[in-house]
């Protein structure tokens, strides 16, 4: 497998979940990593490059975590097929680094033996040696290497220890194949592992369970009462932070865009180009990018829960609730991730062994309100509850999120009875890793990566849409001397957007929306983020340095808007109807594409898209019409 020295070699990282593969991957590749997809399946391929001490460039791929090469879940199948050379578009790696948690060798050596049996050059990265030794495991890495016939590198990857030694082990010539052989059956491997452990990783007599700091924390976080209390407080804190901590940075973004608009107004002559830039691009993009701080805060807290080990505890707590609706605690992480974005959430369902549970989780994931809805929710909450405290806004936001979650759970309970049972029963099992201090560097890199993805999307898809929306709102221009030439509101009605809006108004009116809100709702099917941008364009709000005045102006316009008979359009009931619509509508075509691939079914993806949209319409209609009947306005 040794290639020409002028070509890079490929190193694959493989190991059990929580063994530290990602930490080692980040330490080796630093900023050079990128995320792509394996062909044919939406499974993330994380790859990067690093240099060995002799200057050779190596490609590094981080395979999904797997317990063995007899895969159960989708991502385990990917890992196995890459190593066996059967994954389309992927060549067999030249070297495999098996990452193992040294404190749990008895459980994790099986994967190492299976990799060696493939006949690939292998290096064992023996991670978390500090925890193994403090747990009473007497490690002899030289003997371990001798027993396995491969290089063994002791590491503490979270502290950067062993990284250089690992690079040394990967320099040319590549490691030789192991010359050791054993019976490649389950019993044969377990027998070999027993010999290895006895020789090189014995547990002392004091390896009995002892109460650690993690256990003290678990006595609180896993307690039936304090565990749930902590969970609710943590979730509430996340939502409070989304509002409270984002106010200052959002103000800065707003000022920046406002200042940019004013500058363009001052240097460019009046005309369509200036209007495009100021009223289209700057107003439209500003209306989306302003919510970047909130989205970053959300990603930060989700990442914090993952890296500290709290996420597993939350999954344990949620298992009881989720079992009642036909799911398990394993569905918790994908559904929680869907609150950031449904796409990685749906991809995370690959770790669910039960096909039935995975299918249901994918179908309900879009009802976990994603970060793209934050601009919509925030705008509508401010309209509905002007001037209230951060806590009340947070509670309202929590309520909105809860509506989506509860509806999703009810749908799961209904679907459970209609979908055939799995051929193989799968029970809830979960590892509870020790609590760890958050890896701030890793967290910040993740947030930066997400922020960049958001800005790229804003600069491409959203920018394209705002330009289109501006053009639809501006053209055709009214003739000189007509009433519309002097009245921008009338000109808007006669534009392409106005005509389209008037056409769909009969469909939107029963929900309480006029044609302007109707066009904003329809435009948001392309991207939810443009909802607010479209409102701003549609109401022809002029950019103003004073944020309160600008918001006041939008709020005033909406509150003052009336139907031809003089009734107010944007009452609290209308706002509620809008909120309900956005909670339930699936307005994300990329999600539909991912669902199509993950379920390998166009039919179910389309059912989901059409079904959720219809449900959103009926729900919003019900809220408005029933509210009206009850005398609410």
């Amino acid at each position, binding site marked *: 497998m040794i290639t020409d020295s002028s070509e890079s070699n490929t190193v694959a990282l493989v190991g059990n979940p929580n063994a530290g593969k990602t930490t080692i991957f980040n330490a080796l590749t630093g900023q050079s990593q990128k995320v792509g997809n394996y062909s044919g399946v939406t499974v993330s391929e994380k790859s990067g490059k690093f240099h060995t001490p002799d200057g050779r460039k190596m490609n590094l791929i981080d395979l999904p975590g797997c*317990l*063995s090469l*007899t895969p*159960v879940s989708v991502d385990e199948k990917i890992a196995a097929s890459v190593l066996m050379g059967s994954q389309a578009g992927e060549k067999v790696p030249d070297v495999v680094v098996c990452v193992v*948690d040294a*404190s*749990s*060798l*008895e*459980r*994790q050596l*099986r994967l190492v033996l299976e990799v060696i049996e493939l006949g690939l050059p292998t290096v064992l990265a023996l991670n978390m040696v500090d*925890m*193994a030794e403090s*747990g009473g*495991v007497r490690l002899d890495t030289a003997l371990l290497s001798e027993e396995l016939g491969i290089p063994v590198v002791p590491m503490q990857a979270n502290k950067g220890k062993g990284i250089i030694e690992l690079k040394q082990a990967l320099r040319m010539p590549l490691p030789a194949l192991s010359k050791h052989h054993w019976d490649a059956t*389950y019993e044969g491997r*377990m027998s070999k592992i*027993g010999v290895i452990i006895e020789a090189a990783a014995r547990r002392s007599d004091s*390896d*009995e*369970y002892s109460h650690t700091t*993690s*256990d003290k924390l*678990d006595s609180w976080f*896993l307690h039936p009462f304090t565990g749930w209390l902590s969970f609710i407080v943590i979730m509430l804190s996340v939502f409070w932070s989304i509002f409270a901590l984002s106010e200052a940075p959002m103000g800065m973004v707003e000022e920046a865009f406002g200042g940019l608009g004013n500058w363009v107004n001052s240097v460019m002559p009046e005309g369509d180009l200036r209007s495009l830039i100021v009223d289209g691009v700057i107003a439209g993009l500003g209306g989306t990018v302003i919510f970047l701080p909130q989205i970053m805060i959300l990603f930060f807290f989700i990442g914090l829960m993952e890296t500290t080990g709290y996420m597993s505890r939350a999954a*344990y707590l949620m*298992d*009881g609730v989720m*079992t009642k609706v036909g799911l398990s*605690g394993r569905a918790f992480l994908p559904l929680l991730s869907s609150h950031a974005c449904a796409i990685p959430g749906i991809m995370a369902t690959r770790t669910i*062994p039960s096909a039935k549970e995975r299918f249901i989780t994918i179908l309900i994931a879009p009802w976990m309100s994603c970060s793209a809805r934050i601009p919509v929710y925030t705008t509508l909450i401010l309209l509905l509850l002007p001037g209230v405290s951060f806590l009340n806004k947070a509670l309202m936001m929590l309520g909105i999120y809860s509506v989506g979650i509860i509806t999703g759970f009810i749908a799961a309970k209904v679907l459970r009875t209609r979908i055939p049972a799995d051929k193989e*029963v*799968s*029970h*809830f*099992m*979960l*590892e*509870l*890793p*020790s609590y760890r201090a958050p890896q701030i560097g890793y967290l910040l890199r993740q947030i930066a990566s997400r922020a960049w993805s958001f800005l790229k999307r804003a600069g491409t898809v959203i920018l394209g849409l705002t330009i289109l929306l501006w053009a639809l709102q501006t053209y055709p221009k009214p003739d000189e001397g007509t009433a519309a030439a002097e009245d921008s509101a009338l000109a808007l009605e006669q534009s392409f957007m106005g005509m389209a809006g008037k056409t769909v108004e009969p469909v939107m009116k029963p929900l309480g929306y006029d044609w302007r809100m109707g066009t904003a709702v329809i435009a948001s099917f392309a991207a939810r983020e443009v909802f607010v941008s479209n409102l701003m364009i549609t109401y022809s709000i002029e950019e103003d340095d004073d944020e309160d005045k600008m918001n006041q102006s939008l709020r005033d316009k909406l509150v003052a808007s009336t139907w031809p008979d003089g009734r107010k359009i944007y009452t609290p009931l209308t706002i509620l109807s809008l909120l309900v619509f956005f909670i339930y509508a699936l307005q994300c075509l990329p999600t539909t594409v991912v669902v199509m691939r993950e379920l390998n079914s166009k039919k179910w993806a389309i059912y989901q898209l059409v079904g959720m949209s219809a449900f959103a319409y009926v729900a919003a209609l019900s809220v408005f019409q029933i509210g009206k009947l009850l005398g609410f306005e």
Partner: protein
Amino acid sequence: MAKETQTLTSVAAGDTWRISAFVGGECKQLREMGFCEKLKVTKLSNGRNIICFTCGTKLVLNRKLADQVLVIPV
């Protein structure tokens, strides 16, 4: 402490036992997680899901799975 074989579900929390065998149809899932005969296991809590400690790792097992793990005194 009883000397006969018991299921992991039935033993008291806080005691350490040794896995003697797996019974039932879902043993493969247990083996995938690294459970095997002769390993020591300490049961930490009871409940709908059982928390146990083995080989330096804390694991949560559904009761139905734990019912398939037979243990003997260490």
